[in-house]
């Protein structure tokens, strides 16, 4: 399940400093090695700045609410 894959990956990066460092230096390499589907890889690549560099999440789209 793709949701589960994302949850597990975020948890691993949050708790494994080595993996976090690797993601900072070579995000494409890490994503490729994980063997994600193109859809999950697309999502994970959007998460990298937040996971590895503590970038705040984007402001709410605030569209339909």
């Amino acid at each position, binding site marked *: 399940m793709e*949701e589960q894959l*994302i*949850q597990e990956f*975020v948890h691993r990066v949050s708790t494994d400093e080595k993996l976090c460092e690797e993601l900072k230096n070579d995000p494409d390499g890490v994503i490729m090695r994980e063997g994600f589907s193109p859809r999950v890889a697309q999502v994970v690549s959007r998460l990298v700045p937040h996971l590895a560099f503590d970038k705040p999440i984007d402001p709410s789209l*605030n569209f339909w609410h």
Partner: protein
Amino acid sequence: MCEDRGSSVNPFAAHQQILRERLHFFLCTLHPAVYADVVRAFEDELKILHQVNQDIYTPQNIRSSGVWSLLPLLVAQHVAPEIDPTYASSVALAVESFVTAIDLLDDIEDEDHTEIVHELGTARVINTAAILFTLAQQALLSLSDIGIPPTTILRLLQTLQESSLVVSTGQHLDIVVENRPTHEFTGEECIEIAATKSGALLRLACLMGAQCAGASDELCAKYAEFGELLGIAAQLDNDCNDLYYLLYSQGWALSSEEIVRTSNMMKSDLVRGKKTLPIVLAAEEIAKTQGASTANMQDALQQAATLSDTENEAYMRAFREGIITAWGICLLYRERASERLQELEAQKPFTPLLHLLVGV
């Protein structure tokens, strides 16, 4: 959802005008006392009578007026470009009235201190919601006056009723689960609730547009699925941002009074015990690392002030992880919506206006 940041002209002005004219046709029969409150409801943010600065149109205020009726109208015109605007706008306004009613009830049920509740009071807001539900049905029944076949009208009414049941059930579940411990809740359940709330509303908007334009069952199903995925993504985005700004903008260690004050300003789901995805994922992590007894999120916030830096850090890490994971799942649903969109566009590319509206 729209990425265009340079627009200075409202591209939806003509469609909004059609919708407003048709809306006034429906409203003119109302008693003056009722009329004022119903108009006030349609003036809320995102609704069709919401007033924006006419001189400066940013993507934010372009989207601020009538998105819930613009979507079915633009979908209908996309599927059947020659569709009678009176017909399509009546169906679109049925959706707008329905969503406005649901939003009012949501404000009351969640005890949100919104401007309209403050202005009209609970009793009038509830009654206005009841009138809006009736208006939604009236807008569809009025189609017989312009020669729409009864079978089509019945089908549209059926879609509205089915959606009403789904949304009301979703809202009911959302209230019932407030008292369940957060750590017993699963991410799947959160997404199911999101699907029955924003997911069901956007599903309705897309489906009604396609149905009134005479789309095939297969095409209607695709539009419905596209809307649902987009709605789930929007709900998760909203939940993530609510929690993010509660934790990071308002400060971490809040007193209970501060939590209540903050919630008054920003509808904090955290305070009411709402089981949104980022909260549930954070609770799951806290339950694993700190023990289930501390997994009540409101308690967690209040306890944080008395915890050591190390313990506090553990809570912060759990919340951060919950927010990023939930936001990742939000992006996943946007990707899925984007794929459905590509399937729809394989048959016929969306107009730039429809693209701008859905933002995918």
